[in-house]
């Protein structure tokens, strides 16, 4: 079975793009299934089910959705194999820009939209920078120049990726995307597989349900803004770090 992980910021058009790509893949008589990861609520599974696509939904609730994804994806692959799928597509929302859902040797797609602003590509971490295929959506409503500038900004942060424009409404570009997906590697199990980049870390009192605000309630991996210097740049983060947990 082939496995593809699709991620991207909320409302960037992941579901629409996947539905269009599946429509193109189904013409090749391929059996495609979807695992939809979300946080609190999602009806997208119904959109897949309505088209007869085998689908399972996972809601992370109070947990970091990324951590929830990585703790479940192995079992999802087993489900897909059991369903005798030709391809399993996992869809997960990158709810913070630091998400890192891509797995080594598993096809990784990031969906990002033209409306999110040209500063966005550099603000998104491993989810975009480590993807094999970057799909840019909503190109039909912005100018040619903005599309060109946006794509070149994406290429600046991820020069190795294949960058494609796909229209989630009309399906323009979806056929082309589907031909790239059919090249995805076969996966028999994810046992022993590794993420391409570490996930966002959190291990502090608030992770364990603390609600009170104040220094005395903060234990664990806490980071502070350096207000003296105006902002917390990557290069000042070390000195600005709070209590550290030994790794």
């Amino acid at each position: 079975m082939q496995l593809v992980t699709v991620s991207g910021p909320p409302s960037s058009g992941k579901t629409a793009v996947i539905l269009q790509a599946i429509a193109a893949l189904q013409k090749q008589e391929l059996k495609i299934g979807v695992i939809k990861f979300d946080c609190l609520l999602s009806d997208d599974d119904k959109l897949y089910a309505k088209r007869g696509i085998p689908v399972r939904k996972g809601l992370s609730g109070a947990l970091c959705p990324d951590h929830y994804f990585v703790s479940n994806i192995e079992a999802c692959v087993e489900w897909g194999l059991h369903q005798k799928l030709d391809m399993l597509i996992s869809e997960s929302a990158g709810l913070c820009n630091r998400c890192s859902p891509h797995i080594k040797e598993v096809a990784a797609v990031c969906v990002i939209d033209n409306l999110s602003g040209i500063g966005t590509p550099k603000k998104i971490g491993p989810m975009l920078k480590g993807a094999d295929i970057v799909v840019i959506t909503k190109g039909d409503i912005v100018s040619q120049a903005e599309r060109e500038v946006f794509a070149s900004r994406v290429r600046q942060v991820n020069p190795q990726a294949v960058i494609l424009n796909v229209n989630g409404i009309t399906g323009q570009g979806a056929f082309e995307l589907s031909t790239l997906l059919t090249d995805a590697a076969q996966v028999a199990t994810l046992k022993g597989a590794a993420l391409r980049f570490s996930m966002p870390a959190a291990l502090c009192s608030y992770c364990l349900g603390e609600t009170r605000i104040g220094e005395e309630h903060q234990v664990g991996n806490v980071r502070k803004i350096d207000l003296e210097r105006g902002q917390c740049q990557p290069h000042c983060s070390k000195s600005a770090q709070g209590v550290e947990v030994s790794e």
Partner: protein
Amino acid sequence: MKPDELFSTALVHLLVQYPYLTDFLDSFALSVADSNVTIAELFSDITADQLDNIGLTHEQLCQSLLDYVAGMGALNQGFDKVERLSVIGGFDKDGVAENCEIELIPGQITCIVGATGSGKSRLLADIEWVAQGDTPTGRHILINGQVPDAKWRFSIEHKLVAQLSQNMNFVMDLTVAEFVRMHAESRFVPDVDDKIGQIIAQANDLAGEVFSVDTPITSLSGGQSRALMIADTAILSKSPIVLIDEIENAGIDRKKALALLVQEEKIVLMATHDPILALMGQRRLVIKNGGIAKIITTSTVERSNLVQLEVLDRQLMALRQRIRSGETLEQL
């Protein structure tokens, strides 16, 4: 430059040869305090925390830099000029052969007509994807008579088709000058200020209502936006083909707009059902059921009728102008 050379040369020298490295470093928030350092030194000073913020491992970052430089190098080499693009027919939705070969040449205008859903977008997509019998229509696209290099498919800098439609809007929070500058810089155009002047002059000529360089692009009128998009695409976009989708009478001089694109040696494809625009093309491709059903060459009779249509159009425009200036239409 070889990879190890790239990593071991002082930035001050590197930037002379690869000025765009600044953009790369900037997009990873890497600031250079001393330009005598090498990339290797700069990267080895990045702390684990900083890498975490960048979202790449040290090896991935090095690889990204190499790929970026290689990609930009390929950009400077330029692609072959498209002197002729051929569409070799495939099949419609029922598998009926199209039996045609269409040559598209820079400076030519070809109209695409047909009902919604008839397959106009698929034709464009086939061209953009330089189809080699591997799309649902089975069409083949040749560039200059040859099977083109696959790089056309994925190159962001060398997309074959630039698109312009009625639904497109500007969304960036920039003034006209800032916007054109940003586009020009992303294309590494040498004489940026000259291009800005050229584009704004052309756009104002097309729009009629004059706007200044300091106008925010989001507050341009419909006609001004369209005019700026056309001038910008004609002069700055590298795509040899321009697709115009239903540009209606939105306050721009459409004849001048087409003339500008033709003068800039673009292959113009126009999806339109407007009689005047349709007759401005050399021919019309009629799309039905996913295939090219007919190719109509604009006849001399049609061309002479165009003159008459233009008279009607001018009359209508004059009425429009009267409405705008608050007159009545009791006397036509």
